[in-house]
């Protein structure tokens, strides 16, 4: 096996892992940090994708279409929190049922507005040559995007006053209110940020994963498993899990078949959860 092939596989696996991480970060906030099982999370990804696509259709450059997608999904996320999620904190099954219904509604709405097949937007054309092999540039760029997005959420949650309030309001809503934090408002913002991150993922991945009404579904299962395996130190854990599981699955897929890659992902997930029922970071003494 040649070195250039190996380097190519490594890089493309790292890029697959990064794509998984980008799709997971929002869930790390909503599910990992807030403990809300939002089964419509994948649909926020889809909404982000369509928002960015629609913006580019109106002539907005792709780079500016991304923040538009984030704002749109944040606004919808805030509305969903106020109308549905807020009334169901601590009621796991009710939350799942309500958000499942929401996901079906969003999906059908997308089918009605956009149809089931949408043309993708062209991938920015640049590529990287390694020996005899050439890799598309945009997926590689996702490695940097994933790192920046993770860093952004980490700094936001651990080094800002909002981040401290957000964690306090989630860990002990009543006590947080008793020291002056408007827990309801803060939780709405945190949920909206989680949805905005999903929208960011849908938008930034648009050149790789074209917008379809069912695109969220493709990501959301692996994203949920990643956050569950990650455990209580949700962000760092998710980054590690995405790199290990996503990267490993992608590598297995390049050497064997894509079915073997998925089998790798789910088998290792099952094994890790058997080994660490509360997630790999259950005994870590750090905060995010």
């Amino acid at each position, binding site marked *: 096996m040649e070195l250039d092939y190996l380097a190519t596989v490594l890089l493309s696996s790292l890029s697959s892992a990064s794509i998984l991480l980008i799709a997971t970060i929002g869930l790390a906030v909503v599910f990992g940090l807030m403990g809300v099982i939002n089964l419509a999370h994948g649909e926020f990804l889809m909404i982000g994708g369509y928002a960015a696509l629609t913006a580019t259709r109106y002539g907005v450059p792709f780079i500016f279409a991304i923040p538009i997608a984030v704002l749109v999904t944040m606004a919808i996320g805030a509305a969903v929190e106020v109308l549905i999620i807020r009334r169901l904190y601590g009621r796991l099954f009710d939350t799942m049922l309500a958000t499942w219904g929401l996901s079906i509604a969003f999906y059908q709405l997308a089918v009605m507005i956009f149809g089931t097949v949408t043309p993708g937007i062209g991938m920015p054309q640049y590529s990287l040559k390694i020996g005899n092999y050439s890799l598309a540039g945009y997926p590689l760029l996702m490695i940097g995007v994933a790192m920046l997005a993770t860093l952004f959420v980490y700094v936001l949650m651990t080094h800002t*006053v909002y981040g401290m309030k957000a964690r306090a309001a989630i860990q002990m809503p009543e006590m947080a209110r008793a020291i002056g934090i408007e827990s309801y408002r803060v939780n709405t913002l945190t949920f909206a940020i989680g949805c905005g991150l999903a929208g960011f993922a849908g938008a930034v991945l648009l050149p790789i994963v074209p917008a379809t009404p069912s695109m969220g579904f493709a990501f959301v299962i692996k994203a949920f498993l990643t956050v569950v395996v990650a455990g209580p130190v949700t962000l760092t854990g998710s980054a590690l899990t995405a790199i290990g599981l996503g990267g490993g699955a992608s590598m297995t897929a390049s050497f064997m078949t894509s079915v073997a890659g998925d089998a790798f992902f789910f088998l290792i997930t099952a094994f890790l959860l058997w080994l660490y029922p509360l997630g790999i970071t259950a005994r870590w003494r750090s905060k995010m």
Partner: protein
Amino acid sequence: MFRVVNATGGYGKTVIIRDVSITVEKAEIVALLGRNGVGKSTLMRFAMALIPAFSGHVEIDGHSVPESPARRAKAGVGYVPQGRYVFPRMTVTENIAVAAETNGHSGRVAVESALREFPMLRPKADDLAGGLSGGQQQVLALARALATGPKILLLDEPTEGVQPSIIDEMAGILKRINRERGVAILVAEQDLDFCLSIATRAYVMEKGSVRLETDRESLRADRKLQQQLLGV
């Protein structure tokens, strides 16, 4: 300056406290005494607006404070709940800083002054609060309440499950805070000795109402009353 007026409240439809009125003057330390289950914690939660008021209200400096915990905190009520309730997955420093910043004070200054006031927290400053011992969590909950810059502190059973050496230290700290910063304190307790060592006045509760109001000397002298009302 701090008044709970005709408080009636409870959980669901069950009334736990009925028509309770108490007053704590500026920079005064007042004890709230009574056996288990007479409604001391419920009164504290009423004062903090953590339970709905069936009737009655809370005043600070003559102004009625809205029925919202966050608004009460900002109006100068500091609350240390029974069972501590520190934010477990935040560091000791963050627990204090978030309380200060929320109320418009500098987090860094508040942390510095808290670590000076409570040296036992200093070696734990960067540890997660959930990993502290019971006594350390109690001290942290107190430091967090002080970081909000309160005019009055509501302490609910601060000595529960805390080792005696820390209880003595806590009594000293509370008296010092009261003297130096002029913070009024209302402390709900079953530990009579602890209360007699810091409070100058006391309300004794029985079956959800205030049975009597007394000062330290009469309570200390009256063994029969202690026996009858507190079971000590």
